[in-house]
């Protein structure tokens, strides 16, 4: 002990076209932009990082292990725009040292609005992962690590999962450590893996920050921090966006070099090892119960929902899109359903966040819009067109009367 558990979140949304109230097209997504971003991120991150990790797994002959959660919306895009990335993920899957996790196919906030829709999207993702990588996911992570007791119950009731990944937020742990396995209250089977946000963020956010007192961060120094938990921790959960490697932290920051040397430095201490989330759950018993009555997430300082639900525009847009659920189900139209579900991807609501807009921070970096207001206007225009399509009588169901 301790085990190091890596999980990388891999996701890109279907970004919307510029869509005004005067537009009337039923194609909402910006093919060109999505393709070029996908290719850019593939070149900077997915391809070099996959190659490096594949190499490390081979080099350490089964002692280095990782896990991924790849969203359905990204899988669709990779398939279309960068199939070569798909084959490298496939190669990783075949090493047996990589676990794939389940989430909502559309990277949506559906758990907060409709449990039916949530279950459908999880099932769709599980099916897709099994189809692509040959194994059924056994660990679940919700969009943006959004979590509370109800989610645990819902996941338990689905019967196919052993565990859930979420944020090791201070306020749910109190003075307890995130480096242990916990249980949710009133659950028999599912256990919790909590993100060690301090060590995760050292890599994901602070790695290239020259004002940080630990800068520059080398693999041996980081491994030393992990060694400190020897004897008082089961698992160090390092959870982060995959784009950390090469996209958020550019190649010239030395992030790939860091990753390249990390397994060797960690494994220098003979008590250390790498485990996938499922292996961690098998290896360790929960040390206690963590009660999370209120929703948490991994976002911002607040670790709450305010990045997606912090203002009136966001709550209005979310409310409006989920209000269509019944109509969509009744319409039984595949394209309409797919469009509606792609509109649920959490990124659309993140772009509408006004929280840190003044400071031009990460929210702005990730947004394709000039302002949160522009993103709301665009979204609502698209949604309004989708509503019109829903209201149109289906071809074939009308025309009868004229005979």
């Amino acid at each position, binding site marked *: 002990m301790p085990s190091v558990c890596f999980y990388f979140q891999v996701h890109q949304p279907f970004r919307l076209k510029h869509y005004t109230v005067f537009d009337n097209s039923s194609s909402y997504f910006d093919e060109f932009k999505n393709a070029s971003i996908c290719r850019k991120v593939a070149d900077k991150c997915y391809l070099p990082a996959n190659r490096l990790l594949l190499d490390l797994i081979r080099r350490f002959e089964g002692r280095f292990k990782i896990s991924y959660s790849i969203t359905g919306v990204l899988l669709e895009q990779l398939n279309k725009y960068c199939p070569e990335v798909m084959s490298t993920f496939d190669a990783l899957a075949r090493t047996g040292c990589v676990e794939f996790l389940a989430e909502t196919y559309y990277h949506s906030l559906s758990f907060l609005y409709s449990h039916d829709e949530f279950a459908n999207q999880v099932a769709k993702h599980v099916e897709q992962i099994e189809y692509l990588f040959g194994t059924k996911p056994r660990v679940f992570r919700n969009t943006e690590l959004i979590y509370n007791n109800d989610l645990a119950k819902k996941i338990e009731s689905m019967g196919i999962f052993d565990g859930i990944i979420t944020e090791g937020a201070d306020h749910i742990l109190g003075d307890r450590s995130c480096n242990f396995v916990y249980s949710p209250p009133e659950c028999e089977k599912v256990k919790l893996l909590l993100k060690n946000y301090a060590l995760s963020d050292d890599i994901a956010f602070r790695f290239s920050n020259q004002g940080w007192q630990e800068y520059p961060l080398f693999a041996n120094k980081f491994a030393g921090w992990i060694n400190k938990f020897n004897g008082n921790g089961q698992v160090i959960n390092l959870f982060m966006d995959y784009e950390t490697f090469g996209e958020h932290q550019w190649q010239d920051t030395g992030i790939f070099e860091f990753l390249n040397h990390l397994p060797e430095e960690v494994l220098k201490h003979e008590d250390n090892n790498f485990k996938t989330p499922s292996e961690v759950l098998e290896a360790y018993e929960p040390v206690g119960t963590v009660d999370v009555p209120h929703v948490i997430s991994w976002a911002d300082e607040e670790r709450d929902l305010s990045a997606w639900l912090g203002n*009136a525009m966001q709550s*209005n847009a979310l409310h409006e899109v989920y209000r269509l659920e019944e109509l969509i189900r009744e319409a039984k139209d595949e394209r309409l359903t797919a469009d509606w579900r792609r509109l649920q991807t959490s990124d659309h609501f993140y772009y509408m966040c006004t929280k840190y807009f003044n400071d031009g921070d990460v929210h702005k970096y990730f947004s394709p819009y000039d*302002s949160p207001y522009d993103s709301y206007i665009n979204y609502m225009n698209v949604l309004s067109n989708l509503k019109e399509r829903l209201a149109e009588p289906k071809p074939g169901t009308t025309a009868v009367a004229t005979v």
Partner: protein
Amino acid sequence: MKVFMLGWEFPPFISGGLGTACYGLTKAMNDLGIEVTFALPKVVDPSHSTHVKMLSPGTVIKNTVMRTTSEEVEDELKNVKIKTIQSLLEPYGSVEEYQHRYEDILRNKRMELGGIEFTEEMLVEGKNANGPDYAGDMYSEIHRYAACAVKLAVREDFDVIHAHDWMTYPAGMAVASITGKPLVVHVHSTEFDRSGEHVNQRIYDIERKGMHSADKIIAVSHLTRNTVITRYGILGEKVEVVHNGVDRSVAAKIETSRASIKSEEKIVLFLGRITMQKGPEYFLQAAKKVLSVIDNVKFVMAGSGDMMHRTIEMAAELGIGNKVLFTGFLRGDDVRKVYEMADLYVMPSVSEPFGIAPLEALNHDVPVLISKQSGVSEVLTHALKVDFWDVQEMANKIIAVLRYHPLQMTLREHGNFEVRKFKWEDAAAKCISIYGDMLLRAQPAY
């Protein structure tokens, strides 16, 4: 620190951003303990008949209206001395308008004197030692104004001269050369903003000369700073940016019955001078597009200007005459009322060095849509922004605000909060630090 300020317009006679800026800046300097001597071209009274009286030979000059105003202002501003200089100069005045005003005065006076033929000289020049002797064209008037300013300045004690916009640059230069004090020129707009590419060469030359003679230039935005550098050939190191502020106290009173006077009909507001620079035709074109989608909306154009008639005609030509209301120039309480009615304020300016009006709208709890070609767009984040020529996008955004209440609400809440950071104190403090740097460098090196 003492400042000799060559400015414009004090309340209640404020016709636009220039006067608002001069007053806001001076008031804030006063509060920061800076002594200001404020040279003010005598505000032309709204009714020309008053002028005729003042001009009549033998009549004692009485300018009661002006007296009380400046006294009131002086009472409020302990460190400010206001010195009025009788002049027909007005901010935003064109050469033609000056000519009109001047001829009006002559005509009225002839009528008053019962049709007796007098020569022009007999009417206006030298008849009364204390009387005004306006020059016959604006350019000469600007130089006459400069001479008056010099007369005034030699009796005053100050460290720095600060001149606002081109009409006072010659006065600033004259005072600087007589007194040897450093000169700051404050660029609130340039000839390129006012006239597009059809610049008036004489005005451009005056601006250019003023900027080159100045020891330091203050631009109201980075946008304007760029114009100063690229169009007037000024070195970047000489040009500082000081963004304008907005006076919060004006808005504090109005937070009462906002919703009560709302009707079903939405109101989109244009408030500003109706001139080429302000883009009224883009407003109308966007209005036309908005009306093709929603009907229960009126477009209110508050203001006057040389494109007013053309704009009224254009509304009719577009077939939306019944949906566009022209209020003429509004002041005081009427401005407050029109803001209270408005659902959205639109500033479609073709070229706006800064644009205080959107900040005032936010102060009155009205969300704003501003052109990207404005200085204020550099500093305001909680506003909708659009290229002035993109009327389709302008209409798209107007419709969204009228249709989606959460958008209007979020813009208003965040905007009203954000606008509090635009303080005249900060602008004044920045000017004062610029004076300080300048004086430091002006000291002889030993």
